[in-house]
């Protein structure tokens, strides 16, 4: 990607990672970008760097605009390696004596990552930096999504440099929301579900503060994916909605299966849910990725989990999804457990315990079928699904 002027004197100089498919366990089906932004004013500022391995591209993009040595100030909005991995090389290129602006936690975390004697300037929340015709304001956004995370806001251009918030793992030459079109929302949703879901209480507070402060935002520049310039309010409204986790008229039936018995149950349960007018989707774990399952969980009102019993335990792939889901702390869900078993059948009560630990509102009973569900067994699954569907309808009344 080349440097692109996104506002007078403000350039996108980040890079595209076309080939990444696994982003720390999150499936990225068509790559991602690591965005960085260059502001050329009386002082020249670089906001964030890129993942290690992409330093040359970043420096080449900067050089299209200005000699990297002319950069006066480096700003790090977030310590995670996809944005800081190139810092040593970039600091070397611009000059190790240049000030490195970051949050207090940023200084702590960058020091622990890089052990370099850089000239840190840890900003106070709300601190302003004058760079000539513009000023930059730093807003601490701790745990959105790391302790060091912060936003940098340019009042004159009304641009919010939002670090990982409002990002999407999307690789493309389409740099803006109005160019890429509405398909980007599904990527933004997956990003929210997998990176931010556990911080929804915090997100609602930050959005409230932004509203109260009357911050004018014409453009949001996140560190991954496209820039929101046509409708920044659209992604803000989506974050507000996703953070509330009210749940839609939707249930997902997540399961794995050994000899198709738990599969038959899952599909029958889903049909029962759908018969109550609730959108239902059986999701076979080994045919899906855990990160796509979480995107479905985000707006589902009910999460139904099924597993066969293997060696007196939950099937391992189901545990994987449960562990991942627990960490992301979904809220306000109706939960249910089911599964086929041979002789001991522990999996269902183990799933129930996991879902209870996630504070799901559990259906009164679970459903187990021994070996292969016969017609009566399948009827009990449909009836179980209908009960879940009615519970969803009741909860959303």
């Amino acid at each position, binding site marked *: 990607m080349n440097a692109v002027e996104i506002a007078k004197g403000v350039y996108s100089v980040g890079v595209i990672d076309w080939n990444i498919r696994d982003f720390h366990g999150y499936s990225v089906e068509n790559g991602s970008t690591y965005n960085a932004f260059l502001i050329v004013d009386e002082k020249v500022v670089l906001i964030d760097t890129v993942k290690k391995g992409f330093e040359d591209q970043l420096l080449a993009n900067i050089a299209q605009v200005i000699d990297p040595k002319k950069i006066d100030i480096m700003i790090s909005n977030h310590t995670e390696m996809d944005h800081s991995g190139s810092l040593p090389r970039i600091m070397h290129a611009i000059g190790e004596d240049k000030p490195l602006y970051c949050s207090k*936690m940023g200084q702590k975390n960058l020091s622990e990552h890089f052990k370099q004697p850089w000239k840190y300037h840890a900003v106070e929340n709300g601190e302003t930096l004058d760079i000539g015709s513009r000023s930059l304001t730093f807003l*601490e956004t*701790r*745990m959105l999504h790391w*302790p060091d995370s912060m936003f940098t806001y340019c009042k004159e251009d009304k641009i919010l440099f939002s670090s990982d918030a409002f990002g999407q793992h999307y690789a493309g030459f389409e740099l803006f929301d109005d160019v890429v079109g509405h398909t980007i929302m599904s990527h933004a949703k997956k990003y929210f579900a997998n990176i931010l879901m556990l*911080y929804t*209480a*915090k997100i609602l507070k930050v959005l409230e503060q932004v509203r109260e402060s009357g911050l004018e935002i014409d453009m949001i520049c996140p560190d991954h994916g496209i820039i929101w310039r046509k409708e920044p309010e659209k992604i803000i409204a989506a974050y507000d909605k996703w953070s509330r986790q009210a749940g839609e008229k939707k249930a997902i039936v997540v399961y794995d299966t050994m000899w198709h018995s738990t599969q038959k149950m899952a599909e029958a349960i889903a049909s029962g849910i759908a018969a109550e007018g609730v959108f239902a989707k059986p999701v076979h774990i080994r045919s899906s990725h855990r990160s796509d399952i979480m995107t479905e969980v985000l707006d589902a009102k009910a999460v139904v989990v099924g597993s066969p019993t293997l060696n007196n335990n939950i099937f391992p792939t189901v545990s994987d999804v449960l562990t991942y889901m627990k960490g992301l702390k979904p809220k306000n869900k109706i939960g249910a457990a089911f599964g086929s078993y041979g002789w001991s059948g522990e999996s269902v009560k183990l799933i129930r315990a996991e879902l209870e630990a996630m504070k799901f509102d559990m259906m009164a009973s679970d459903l187990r079928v021994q070996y292969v569900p016969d017609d009566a067994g399948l009827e009990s699954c449909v009836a179980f699904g209908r009960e879940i569907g009615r519970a969803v309808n009741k909860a959303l009344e």
Partner: protein
Amino acid sequence: MDKYVCDICGYVYDPEAGDPDNGVSPGTAFADLPADWVCPVCGASKDDFSKED
């Protein structure tokens, strides 16, 4: 004395250890922390903490 967990980031305040980095000496109960004390990891305020069970 009870331990308290930060609901935002998972940090656990242990009264026995206190928070010496931020001027809280060991043996300080959660209730006795100053009102403006914040989570040393994520900056959450005291009301974002709940008792560890």
